[in-house]
């Protein structure tokens, strides 16, 4: 299967070409072409895998040369981090890179000879799913970025930012390559390398504008992720010395039988995953990542980076089931789900709402993985799929809206449906995908709730119940803003969305609806086998009755508004003014105030930012979760040695 090294190496090569090509048109053309090539090669990979009977495939047993190259590349990464940390006078951050790299290098050079059990590359349902997400969504984001970055550097808003698009696109492709490597690798040393690579790519992307805020936020992202990387490196080396083996699946099966060393390693790696998935107390880096241009936010939030954390946790899920580690992860995830959904209510900046909701949804996925039963993993997989599409769609849409509207504040989107109809409809679809009835998010929540009752995880039940109530609140009020008749003039605004951005948005919207409509089918043919493979037992989460109900709901919820809309269009209705105590001034946008002057009507949503704003809640909840993690880690490690 030559397609696998191609998938990993091709984006890296393109990254170099992007960096070297300084003529925009040529570079854009290469970017389009490469995005298509990546999508096609993911398709080829999937076809090859299906034609081999959808079995697990392991590859590459002797890879000494590649191991050396990877080690060298890891040292280069360390060099980059060290240089930049010294350049921006944050030298201490470099320690977080030097220490783990030194540790890994020492292990590789002086450590025991490892016994290969599996291969270096591991292909199964989960890695195929990740490849599809990274390949399709990631490439679409690249397509979108071509148009967006052009507008970005031509708007007066960003005139102080140096145009370094060659660098930006190089990073995007580097990121995709690292993600492919990450999800396909079985060897923990390789995983560690790609892990560091995604950390550093996101660091560089966040700092793209080189403004002071961007630099600060990028270093915050860097140190938090490198901290996770340290935990990962320690786990790998400890595990490698104990078992003379560095295979992920062997580690998971050792963890499942509660082998002492493996328990500690699983705990450390899951801690690392918490940092990458931006769970509390490490959530602030993802919110800080908002300063970067929109395509990089879309990439970080949907297809890459945070999903890497979820991927690792899902891999570890069987080993976490019913253990202290699982308890810790489920608690931190559930708590994050609840608290950040409160914080999301208080935000009016659209991108911030998305950021908090990403963290919140990731929290639910993390909690599902932490519980580690077949049902919760099923739910987590669906949450991940829907979240990836919908978040990518929403971020791209908000970027395009901001370009046209000059604002990304939800309050300014009042009447967006009448100002920018296309973008508003895409936004509507994206938001609906995040929480409304027939869309998969809700059914996943249903499964998560049922499973947490089944395993008697009381705290998680509380978190999910209150969290889902608050989640609907912030999404619904946003949707309401979009469809309200405008209190401004309500005329269409010039839609500056480029054709390529529109293509990407349209594909996303189609994917979203298709996934919703084909939900039962996807569950049957893909997700159930995935869960079986992981847990070795067959349990149909979606019973036939639920499936049947679900299909009815899907049909009704899609058909009714549509048919009702068609029928009401033909009806004759007298239109009247809205009720304003008889002081309307002729239309619904203004009224006569007490001094007899005309006053524009202005409607605003509830935010409660003084009560549940992130300023108020963030630090206490960070302290709390940190304490929980420290105590639980002590219990886990102490429990093994005592």
């Amino acid at each position, binding site marked *: 299967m030559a397609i696998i090294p191609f998938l990993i190496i091709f984006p890296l090569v393109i990254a170099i070409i992007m960096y070297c090509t300084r003529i925009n048109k040529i570079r854009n053309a290469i970017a389009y072409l490469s995005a298509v090539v990546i999508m096609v090669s993911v398709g080829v990979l999937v076809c090859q895998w299906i034609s081999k009977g959808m079995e697990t495939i392991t590859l590459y047993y002797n890879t000494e040369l590649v191991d050396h190259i990877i080690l060298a590349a890891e040292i280069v990464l360390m060099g980059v981090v060290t240089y930049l940390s010294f350049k921006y006078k944050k030298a201490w951050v470099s320690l977080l890179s030097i220490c783990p790299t030194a540790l890994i290098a020492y292990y590789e050079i002086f450590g025991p000879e490892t016994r290969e059990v599996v291969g270096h590359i591991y292909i199964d349902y989960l890695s195929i799913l990740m490849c599809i997400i990274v390949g399709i969504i990631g490439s679409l984001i690249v397509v979108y970025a071509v148009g967006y970055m052009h507008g970005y550097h031509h708007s007066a808003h960003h005139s102080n930012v140096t145009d370094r698009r060659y660098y930006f696109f190089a990073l995007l492709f580097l990121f995709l390559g690292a993600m492919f490597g990450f999800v396909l690798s079985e060897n923990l040393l390789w995983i560690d390398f790609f892990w560091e690579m995604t950390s550093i790519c996101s660091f560089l992307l966040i700092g793209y504008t080189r403004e002071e805020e961007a630099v600060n936020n990028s270093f915050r992202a860097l140190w938090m992720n490198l901290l996770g990387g340290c935990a990962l490196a320690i786990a790998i080396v400890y595990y490698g010395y104990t078992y003379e083996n560095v295979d992920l699946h062997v580690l998971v099966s050792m963890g499942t039988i509660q082998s002492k060393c493996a328990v500690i390693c699983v705990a450390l790696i899951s801690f690392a995953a918490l940092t990458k998935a931006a769970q509390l107390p490490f959530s602030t880096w993802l919110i800080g990542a908002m300063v970067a241009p929109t395509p990089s936010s879309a990439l970080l939030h949907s297809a890459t980076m945070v999903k890497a954390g979820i991927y690792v946790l899902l891999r570890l899920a069987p080993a976490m089931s019913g253990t202290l580690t699982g308890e810790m992860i489920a608690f931190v995830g559930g708590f994050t789900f609840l608290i950040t959904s409160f914080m999301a209510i208080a935000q009016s900046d659209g991108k911030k709402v998305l950021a908090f909701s990403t963290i919140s949804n990731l929290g639910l996925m993390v909690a599902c993985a932490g519980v580690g039963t077949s049902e919760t993993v099923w739910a987590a997989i669906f949450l991940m799929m829907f979240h990836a599409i919908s978040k990518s769609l929403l971020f791209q849409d908000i970027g395009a809206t901001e370009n046209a509207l000059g604002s990304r504040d939800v309050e300014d989107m*009042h*009447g967006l449906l009448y100002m920018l109809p296309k973008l508003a409809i895409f936004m509507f679809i994206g938001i609906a995908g995040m929480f*409304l*009835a*027939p869309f998969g998010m*809700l059914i996943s929540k*249903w499964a998560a*709730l*049922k499973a947490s*009752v089944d395993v008697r995880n*009381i705290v998680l*039940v*509380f978190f999910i*119940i*209150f969290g*889902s*109530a608050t989640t*609907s*609140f912030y999404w*619904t*009020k946003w*949707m*309401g*803003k979009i*469809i*309200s*008749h*405008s*209190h401004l003039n309500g005329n269409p605004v010039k839609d500056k969305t480029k054709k390529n951005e529109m293509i990407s948005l349209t594909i996303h919207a189609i994917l979203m609806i298709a996934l919703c409509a084909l939900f039962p089918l996807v569950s049957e043919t893909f997700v159930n086998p995935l869960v079986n493979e992981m847990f070795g037992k067959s349990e149909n989460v979606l019973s036939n*009755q*639920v499936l049947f*109900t*679900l299909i*009815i*709901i899907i049909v*009704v*919820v899609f058909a*009714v*508004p549509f048919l*009702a*809309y068609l*029928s*009401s*269009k033909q*009806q*004759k*209705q*007298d*239109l*009247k*003014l*809205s*009720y*304003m105590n008889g002081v309307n001034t002729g239309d*619904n*946008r203004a009224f006569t105030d007490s001094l007899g002057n005309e006053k524009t*009507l202005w*409607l605003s*949503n*509830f935010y409660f930012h003084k009560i549940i704003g992130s300023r108020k809640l963030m630090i206490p909840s960070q302290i709390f979760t940190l304490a929980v993690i420290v105590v639980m880690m002590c219990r886990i490690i102490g429990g093994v040695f005592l």
Partner: protein
Amino acid sequence: MIRIILTICYILLAPLIGGLLDGLDRKISAKMQRRVGPPLLQPFYDVSKLLTKRETAVTKSQNFLLISYMVLMILTGAMFFSGTDILMCFFVMSTAATFLYFAGVVTSSPYASIGAQRELLSMMIYEPAVLFACVGFYLATGSFNVADIARSSDSAIMYLPGFFIAFVFILTIKMRKSPFDLATSHHPNQEIVKGITSDIGTKNLAIFTVTEWYENVFLMAVVSLFVVNKNPISIVVALVVVLLVYFLEILIDNASARVKWQTMLKTTWVVTLFTAGVNLIILMIIK
């Protein structure tokens, strides 16, 4: 078979029962206020009059949003009576409620918008108690399916007294009754006029009213689910309980004044946590 009959009965009869309950409500309220009150069938006269009026609206889209609200609400009840998953029923109900919210805000009218915002807030406030109730049923009877819950050997309320109290408490919010009628008021001469329904008129208002009837019957059916078990006598008991609960709601409605949303949020969540939450913890330990 019986499920299909029940479902059809719900779709056909719920507006009748709901309308009668509404008429009863007005009658009893009037008696409590020492008035004569309207005839029992007054709600039906009102709706039929609304249907014959010439259609007026603030924006055309109100109509299709309200129709979607109604159909999804009917679907909720129909799913319930056909014995499917109760959690799914409530999920569909919250989607229905979302359409009502849209119908409120789409006009950008000041009173309807503030009413809709408050409606949304109350959705957030009552949802935990509703989800708790579903979880409670699951723990007590081992199934989310309404059909299985109704056929269990003991009444669910034996295990779920706390859940029952929490559910009855939020019924006041759900039925938009005082002191929690923040989203709409029964009398248009108040601070939010008629809240979310301020700019809903003629046929649209008729749709809204009928949907409310469907909703009330569904909610009462959920109340009865706490009592019904495989013994047929329990159905009679359930009917008595439903009537008592409905009377209690009328009493509360007449005996209290509207509160601020802060008070509603605090009291409801505290009650939910201390009744349903504590009940849940106990249930999880013993079952």
